[in-house]
Structure formats: structure tokens, C-alpha cells
């Protein structure tokens, strides 16, 4: 592989890992606070649809993003109401959100746009395009650093930068602020937090809302940045891959970033390995397309050691009377 191919693969890695990373960090807030979130997929799908539909109707990408974030937040609140206030089973609440999202987005898509559940193709100004970082052109000819900066780091859309900025921000919020300490405590030992006079319910709602916000960015990335319009079920299980990445990274922000980059890399690689001969034998497309999933199973089953989640995760909190 020459430099161009390597750069192109890494470039695609960043693009493909962005939605995973946003969803993974989203799940981290919720799960750290003791609310297992299997509904990442559903929230992303709702956001993707709302973003594309709004961008297409208003002609503004920012209105689209705002709608995506808003819908995702509302979906998160709905899930929160079921799992926190009503003390429903968290896994069932998440699954319900996923099922609702698939059905509702397709239904509304057909009703509103009559294009088989798709939203219209987005035009220029209705989707996020590549951002050129300063000095990208000037540095392009500098050996080694030049192409890495101008091809790899520059030239992504704004949501990509938001995703990677969210990593240090999440680390800081979770591990260096009072809010983060309380949030983690709620996930480990809610009774102790309650005894200290802090509302467990309020903490969990805040966490779930942050989850909704980040899922909104992830969903918008699918439909108004990476793609140009919404398609049925376009998140294609990425929410579950993000969940796998979260466990693999043991609920920590920086490992989460590297895990998502690994999954993104495998995806980018499988696209480039199609039809390539290895040792004189043409590898079947199917085998290569299954690679990311097979590796997910192997990594989760064998290589990460024991991944212990937040102790109070999965249990609705109720004060003893």
C-alpha cells in the first residue's frame, strides 16, 4: 500500500468512526449514571430523520441540526420517563424506542414525502460539507506532516470535529467536575448520593438528556453530513456497535475513542479489500463484509478481560420507605 491509499483509508476511518464515537460517548453518560441505554440506535434514527426532513423543507442545514437534536432530546426524555420515573425495565424501554423509531420514521417519511420512506435528496446548503482548516493548502507540500494535516485532519465536516472534541470534554466532565463525580456515584451507589441530599432522579435525567444530545449529533451526521438525505433504517445497527465499543472500552472516554477508531478502520478496510486478491486467492466479498462483526465478537469474547459496568446499572432507583 502506498501513502495515498493509507491516507485514504485513515481518512475514511475518521469519517466512519464519527457516528460510533458520538453514540458511544452518548451511551457513556447514560450508563455511567446507571441507566442502560439500548435505545441509542432509535434516538439516532429519529434524529437522522428529523434532521434530513427539516433541512430539506427549510433549506437550512442548521435548522436540520437543531431539529435532529430536539427530536433526539425528546426521545431521550420519553425513554427516561419510562426507565427512571416509571421505573420500567431499562432494556425494554430502549428496545421499545428502537422499534418506535424504525416504524415511525418510515411511516412519516412515506406520508410526508411519498418517496418510499426516503426524504428528498439534499442540495447544497442543506448538508454539512467539508471544512478546510487554516493553512491546509499552504502545508500540503510539506513532507509527511503536510499530507497528514491537509488530507487527514483537515477536510472533514464540522460534526466530525465535534465528535472528537467531545472526547476530552467528556473526560473532563466525568472525571474532573463535581457534576461528573455525582453522575458516576449515581451509577455506582445511588443510595449514598441520595443520603448526601442529591436527587438521584434529577442526576439520571440530566445524564439521559446529554445522551440524547449526543445521539442527535450522531443521527444528524448520518443524514445531513455523511449522506444527503434520510433512508429507511439508515443507522444500520451502528447504535449496537457503539454499545459494544462502550463495553470494550470499559466505559472510559479515551479508550472509547480508540475502540471506535478501530471499528471505523475495519469498516474502511473492508470497503477497500473488496475484490483484492490475497495470496492469489480472491477473498469473497461476504467474508470481508462480515469482518467487522466477527472481530467485534472475538474482541468482546476473548480479549478485553473482565468488563464490569457501573454497579447500579440497569436498576431503577427507589427510595426505601
Amino acid at each position, binding site marked *: 500500500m502506498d501513502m495515498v*491509499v493509507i491516507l485514504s483509508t485513515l481518512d475514511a476511518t475518521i469519517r466512519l468512526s464519527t457516528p460510533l464515537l458520538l453514540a458511544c460517548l452518548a451511551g457513556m453518560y447514560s450508563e455511567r449514571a446507571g441507566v442502560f441505554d439500548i435505545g441509542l440506535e432509535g434516538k439516532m434514527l429519529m434524529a437522522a430523520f428529523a434532521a434530513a426532513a427539516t433541512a430539506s423543507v427549510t433549506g437550512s442545514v442548521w435548522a436540520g441540526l437543531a431539529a435532529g437534536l430536539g427530536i433526539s432530546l425528546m426521545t431521550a426524555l420519553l425513554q427516561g420517563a419510562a426507565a427512571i420515573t416509571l421505573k420500567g425495565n431499562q432494556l425494554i424501554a430502549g428496545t421499545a424506542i428502537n422499534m418506535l423509531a424504525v416504524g415511525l420514521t418510515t411511516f412519516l417519511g412515506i406520508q410526508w414525502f411519498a*418517496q418510499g420512506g*426516503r426524504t428528498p435528496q439534499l442540495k447544497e446548503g442543506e448538508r454539512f460539507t467539508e471544512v478546510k482548516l487554516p493553512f491546509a493548502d499552504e502545508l500540503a507540500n510539506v513532507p509527511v506532516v503536510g499530507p497528514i494535516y491537509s488530507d487527514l485532519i483537515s477536510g472533514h465536516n464540522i460534526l466530525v470535529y465535534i465528535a472528537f472534541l467531545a472526547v476530552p470534554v467528556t473526560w473532563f466532565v466525568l472525571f474532573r467536575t463535581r457534576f461528573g463525580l455525582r453522575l458516576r456515584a449515581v451509577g455506582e451507589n445511588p443510595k449514598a448520593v441520595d443520603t448526601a441530599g442529591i436527587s438521584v432522579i434529577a442526576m439520571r435525567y440530566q445524564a439521559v438528556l446529554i445522551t440524547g444530545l449526543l445521539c442527535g449529533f450522531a443521527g444528524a451526521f448520518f443524514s445531513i453530513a*455523511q449522506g444527503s438525505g434520510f433512508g429507511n433504517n439508515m443507522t444500520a445497527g451502528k447504535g449496537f456497535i457503539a454499545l459494544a465499543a462502550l463495553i470494550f472500552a470499559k466505559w472510559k472516554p479515551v479508550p472509547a475513542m480508540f475502540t471506535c477508531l478501530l471499528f471505523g478502520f475495519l469498516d*474502511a478496510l473492508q470497503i477497500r479489500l473488496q475484490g483484492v486478491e490475497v495470496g492469489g486467492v480472491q477473498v469473497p466479498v461476504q467474508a470481508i*463484509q462480515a469482518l467487522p462483526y466477527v472481530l467485534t465478537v472475538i474482541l468482546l469474547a476473548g480479549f478485553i478481560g473482565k468488563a464490569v459496568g457501573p454497579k447500579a446499572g440497569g436498576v431503577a432507583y427507589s427510595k426505601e420507605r
Partner: protein
Amino acid sequence: MNAISKHFGALLAGVAMTAVVTGAALADPAIIYDLGGKFDKSFNEAAYNGAEAWKKETGGNYIDVELQNDAQREQALRRFASQGANPIVMAGFSWGTALNTVAAEFPDINFVVIDAVVEQPNVQSIVFDEHTGSFLVGAIAALKSTTGTVGFVGGMDVPIIHKFYCGYAQGAKAVKADIKLIENYTGTTPAAWNDPVTAGELAKAQFDAGADVSFAAAGGSGLGVLQAAADAGKFSIGVDSNQNYLHPGSVLTSMLKRVDVAVSTAFKEAGDDATFKPGVNVLGLAQDGVGYALDDNNAALITDDIKAKVEEFKAKIISGEIKVHDYTADNSCPGI
């Protein structure tokens, strides 16, 4: 309309049907679209346009349905057949099994299937010479390419899409024997017809590997390829419908498959037993069943030089001087 008058209307229709001897010919035609949806800007949309053209021309009505999943095929066919729709037209290569079963159950109804072959006395099968049309756009791609590398993004990895690729590759090689071809498929399940994100990533990878033209034979997924080409300032080639207008200046041409003509002809002729022609009907370059799209949106891209060469290829294929190999004949593509 309340329930009673609705029933009364149905009753009247029933009386009318039995009163006229050739009752079936009066029934409305029906069309069933394949997965990917009516407005995929490609194959299904071409079928829809054909139905609409028929409606405009004759003022008649037709009924249609979009499938949501594979399991609905027989169900949709039976429902239309028992409603007395005639003819029933279906678009897509996955209809073989379902139609074989249902056609035998309704011998009085005429069926037309596009892109598949079903051998029943009341079925007309329309297939296209996609390989010759693909040959022409392959030649255009090679003539336009400055890098000497051209790409292909297929939808689902099935023989009929290999047929597109095989023709495309032969056309490109006919222009430039040492041209480099990159062949990719979006996936292996029907979801691959509706996955523009993956298809777009495949196209981006092809452009990064040096390709400057990519042919998308991928139904709704092809939109991702067209978008990726427009974003990267490269060329793409659309499929089935004329997709030149989607990104003028970037969509080089479209491999036309006149599904619209097939549908409107079927609506016109297949409802009446006198004009219905069961059996296999192959539409090729000579019948204008396949071809390449030339309009205002790509007039500046297709120079007179390119056009002259492609027309020459077309004439030679029609006369039989150039034989384009059909992948589906032996499931192989020799020399590629």
C-alpha cells in the same frame, strides 16, 4: 362515500364485469414495485414513469403497491389478482418464485414480469440487454477518463448486476485495452439497494485509488455514488432512469433501461388477450430498450468525438460485428 354505497359500487362493477364478454380487458392494470420503493430515482421510478405515461395517454386508472419486504410478494400478487386487475405488471428480478405459484392459480389474468423469466402460458417476461447498454457507458467512461482507472459500484451482489459490470468492463476495454477497473458491490442482502452511505464510501475509495468515473448500478444506493462523485469533482454514471439531472456536470451519462416503455406497453397490450404476447421478450439496443442518456445536463460532457465513437460501437453491436458477452449466459466474464 359510506360503506353501503361503496359496496353498491363494487356490486355494479361486478355486474358490469359479467355483462361484458371480455370483462377482463376492462379491468384496471396493476403494477407492483420492488424493494427500494417507487421513488428510487432509478429502476422502480422508471416503472412508475411508464405507468404515469400510460395514464396521461389513455386517461385510464391503475393500481399500484410498494413492497416493504420479500414476504409480501405472493400476498400482493394474490390480492391484485383476486381483485381482477389485469394485467398485473411487476418490476424486479426477484419475482420468479412468487409469480410461478400465483400465475398458475389465476389462469385468466395476464402477468408481465420485467427483469425475470417465468415460463407460464399467461406470463410475458421482459428482459433487457443490460450488457450492451453497459458496454456503451463503459466506452464513454474510458473515453472520458484521464487517469486510466474507472470504477463500478453494484448494488446487491447478484448475477444480473455482474451482467452490468461485465458489459461495462468490455466497453471500457474496447476503448483502452489496459484500462484499470475497480469493481465493488454494496452488499449481499436486498438492503444493498437502499444503502447510499455504503455505496458512497465505496465510490470515495475508488476515487482515492485513482478512478475518475464511477458507474453506479445500485438502485437507490446509487444516489450515494452520484453524491460522492459530485462532492469529489469526479464523474458518475447513473442507471435505469435518466439521472443526469441529479448533479449536472458530474453525472456523465446514465445507462438507460427503458423500463418505462416496457410498463406502458404492457399496460396497453397485455390486458387484452388479442394483443398479449406471452413468452420472453428481449429488449436491446436495436429496440431502444437500453441505451445511454444524452440531454442538456450532460451535453457539455459528451463531446462530439465521444458521441461519434459510441454511436459507432452501437451500430457495430446492432449489426453483430461486436459481440458483447452476457454474464448471465454462463456466469462468467471471460477476459475481464
